[in-house]
């Protein structure tokens, strides 16, 4: 939907500032009460969901005759983590901030107001089908020697979609290999697209390039269909969120169930197909990746408009799905951690629907280094405050940003992908 289609919603922000705080029912301390990394860094109301709705409204009503660098920063210096959306909707019937923010980005790109760093990503996508612009031919290098099936040649039960980050960041290759080993416990045939895999397109969409996104979504849908897979499994929360939310809300469907690796593993444990032999004496805390949690909630394509239901009473017709993040993936990773002998899970104050973002999403990692680092640092401090030895997550983007931030800020906290702990517990090396 175009920005102007959100006029009613944008004019119904109540400036309650809910979008800046976790739910007041859930606040456990003043220290960790803030929700939005963007305004927490910049402090101007403009950098909150409410501020962005007002900016969008001003643009839609023609109150602004220019686009400034500051406006661009307001629009794009946001991880699109969606926390504002779920908090706003506990209060406000008439606004969906994340949709407005998405429309703003698309609008800016359509107007040629593009963040230069994002163009590197887009050009890389166009050229090499990945966000890093790395040679496409190396996309499947991580799987060399693993004997995984190539979906271009044979049908599979499960398509493992690796995603750009894990494919080209070789620090994650070991995790991928562990995941493959774990997945083989299922007895299902697992295949990959290898060098033919392309980006899910989610990052392009969140950077405002809807057309680019559609190209990749179409390609992905085609690959899945051709593979015959009943499940698409990914270790990347960003890809998961894209498949779950963005694809359906933009009219794209995958002819397979989308499964995050944590859900896959949790299912294996439930089925008794995965047993843990080793005890791992480790106190951990778990970081909910935004795109696995609240933004992993299945999206629905809505076509309609706000209509007058009664005097002074307006509403979306047909009814619009209410996105509160409730149906994201939160339990599977926790179930896994609870199942690993010796692991002691302590929750941070901001969890699940109201988890604090890692700082890597929405094009921030690529263009707004300070925000990416400070956002991650805040999360690391929150993790440390639990007293845990390790921060466990389930997304390579989160993990990458946490590791890099920890490198620069220092600290004794260990960072794990949940797959690593599972692999250790099952006796892997």
């Amino acid at each position, binding site marked *: 939907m175009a920005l102007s289609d959100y006029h*009613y919603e944008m*004019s*119904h*922000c*109540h*400036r*309650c*500032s809910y979008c*800046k*705080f976790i*739910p*007041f*029912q*859930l*606040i*456990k*301390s*003043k220290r960790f*009460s803030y929700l939005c990394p963007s*305004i927490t860094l*910049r*402090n*101007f*109301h*403009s950098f909150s969901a*409410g*501020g*962005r709705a*007002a*900016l969008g*409204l*001003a643009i839609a009503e023609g*109150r*602004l005759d*220019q686009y*400034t660098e*500051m*406006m661009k920063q*307001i629009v794009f210096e946001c991880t699109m983590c969606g926390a504002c959306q*779920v*908090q706003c*909707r*506990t*209060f406000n*019937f*008439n606004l969906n901030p994340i949709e407005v923010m998405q429309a703003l980005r698309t609008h800016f790109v359509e107007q040629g107001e593009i963040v230069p760093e994002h163009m590197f990503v887009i050009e890389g996508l166009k050229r090499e089908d990945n966000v890093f612009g790395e040679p496409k031919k190396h996309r499947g290098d991580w799987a060399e020697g693993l004997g995984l099936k190539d979906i271009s040649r044979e049908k599979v039960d499960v398509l493992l979609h690796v995603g750009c980050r894990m494919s080209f960041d070789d620090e994650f290759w070991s995790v991928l290999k562990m995941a493959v080993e774990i997945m083989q416990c299922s007895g299902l045939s697992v295949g990959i697209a290898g060098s033919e895999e392309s980006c899910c397109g989610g990052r392009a969409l969140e950077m405002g390039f809807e057309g680019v996104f559609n190209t990749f979504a179409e390609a992905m849908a085609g690959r899945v269909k051709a593979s015959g897979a009943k499940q698409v499994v990914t270790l990347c929360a960003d890809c998961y969120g894209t498949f779950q939310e963005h694809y359906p809300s933009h009219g794209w469907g995958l002819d397979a169930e989308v499964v995050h690796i944590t859900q896959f593993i949790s299912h294996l444990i439930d089925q008794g197909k995965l047993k843990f032999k080793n005890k791992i004496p480790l106190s951990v805390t778990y970081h909910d990746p935004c795109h696995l949690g609240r933004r992993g909630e299945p999206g629905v394509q809505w076509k309609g408009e*706000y209509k*007058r*239901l*009664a*005097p*002074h*009473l*307006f*509403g979306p017709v047909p*009814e619009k799905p*209410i996105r*509160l*993040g*409730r149906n994201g993936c939160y339990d599977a990773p926790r179930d896994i951690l609870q199942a690993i002998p010796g692991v002691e899970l302590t929750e941070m104050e901001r969890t699940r629907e109201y988890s604090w973002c890692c700082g890597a999403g929405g094009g921030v990692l690529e263009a707004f280094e300070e925000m990416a680092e400070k956002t991650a640092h805040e999360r690391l401090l929150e993790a440390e405050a639990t007293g845990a030895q390790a921060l466990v997550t389930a997304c390579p983007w989160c993990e990458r940003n946490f590791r890099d931030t920890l490198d620069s800020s220092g600290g004794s906290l260990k960072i794990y992908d949940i797959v690593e702990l599972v692999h250790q517990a099952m006796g892997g090396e």
Partner: protein
Amino acid sequence: MTIPIEAKKALEEALGSENVSDDPGVIETYSYMNGLGSGATGYWWARPACVVLPGSTEEVQKAVIICNQHKLRFKAHSTGWICCALATSKNCVLMDMRRMDGLEIVEPDGYVITEPYATAGETQVEAMKRGYNPHLVGAGPNASNLASATSMQGTGGTSVRTSMNERNPLAIEWVLPSGEILRLGSLETPNAGWFCGDGPGPSLRGMMRGAAGNIGGNGVFTRIALKLYPWYGPPYECEGRPPFFKSKALPLGYVRYVSWKDRDLECDALYRLGETEILDYSNRWSASALMSSLAISNQDYREMKKKGELHKVFPNGYWTFFFNANSQRQYDYNVKVFEHIIKDTGGTIIDPRDLGDPAYEVAIQNAVRAQWIGKSAYMPTGSNTGVPPLTYETIDQCMKFSLDETISVKKEWIAKNKIYNDGEDNAYACLDENGHFLHVEHAAHSDWAEPEAEPLGIILKGYGRALEKGLGPAYMSMPAGWAKRSEYSRYMVQIQRMIDPNRAADSMLTNAAETMGA
């Protein structure tokens, strides 16, 4: 207007360039507010010349002095919720106080030192860990406690125990529009602290506000101490999933909905309940308001309204009462006397659980954290006008006279489609200080998208009615009263001008009062 380059440069030097913006996009985001009276004035307010983010009292002072030097005006606001102090002058430097968000609970004295951007909800969480409870305004936990204590109004359901927020400040640190820092009460006594706000000698708290404050027009309150009240039992916590979550049990907590068919008996009960001193929360509202809290969309709300089930349960509005006891004995007495009085006055007690889990959560979360009051006030249309007679006085005056006068005003507006038909009686009321006085105001919803919306008119109509019927002194905080009793507003304007010799404060109220003859 554009801020002069020299002024901007001075602000940047004083506050850091990252904390100063005159970018048109930033300016727009500080010009918008859909809330009070939006249907008449629109949701766009005056564009400030510049927005700044001071981080300390000293920075506030520097910014105020710069405004004085450059003939700019200034105004500060906190979280921005509801009566957000947006600019009303175009040469206004708007101060967003977000960077000043500190709060410190002082033990064992039992007060909190709070900066502008610390919210009531955050304060409560920290206070409860130590056995205290702050006052919470009805606006909700997202409201700044400093703002309502110094500059706005400050009523809430906990007022039966915690009074309204004019009554809660202890020591105060205040950057006057002149640029001087005024510290009230114990603060300037060496080694004393923040425990008292009156004196030495006369209390200059009296030039800060009355029943209502000057909405940002008296300078910037940078830190104040607010007294805390007891909280018995464990800190209140919720868990579970949005939107309603699930409250953990309060072992000696008790929440009930109560309604009466007869207004006189209702008043009798309120007096008697107040006199027992058992209540920690009291709030009257309507079936329509409860539906607004329970619904999750306009359609949902509309369906509830069509079914009309809650209107059948609460045809005459309802009260939520809550207390949290310290001992089983106290709990038993509280329940016994509560039930005795309600029975004796013909009231009906409803356990919110009988209306379903969300209804219970709405009741308990409102009672403890004022969580859903704002939703009831602003949903489903997005705008709410507090309709006068907006009264603070006795239970009898508020409940027997003001409430029905407002309904009569509303009926006229509803008939003309100027406001939403919420069932007419949507009166919000709460007891203060064990029933020594009561506050009532009336929600009137409207949506700017409705072509005939005219919420501002109902305010003027309501104030006219208040004057005509002699109801409630609080009305005089609005222009309609000033013409009649100008002796009050004349002194108010004189005080404001005395602390603001260069007219630097963007003082909407005093400017309007002066225009209207004060």
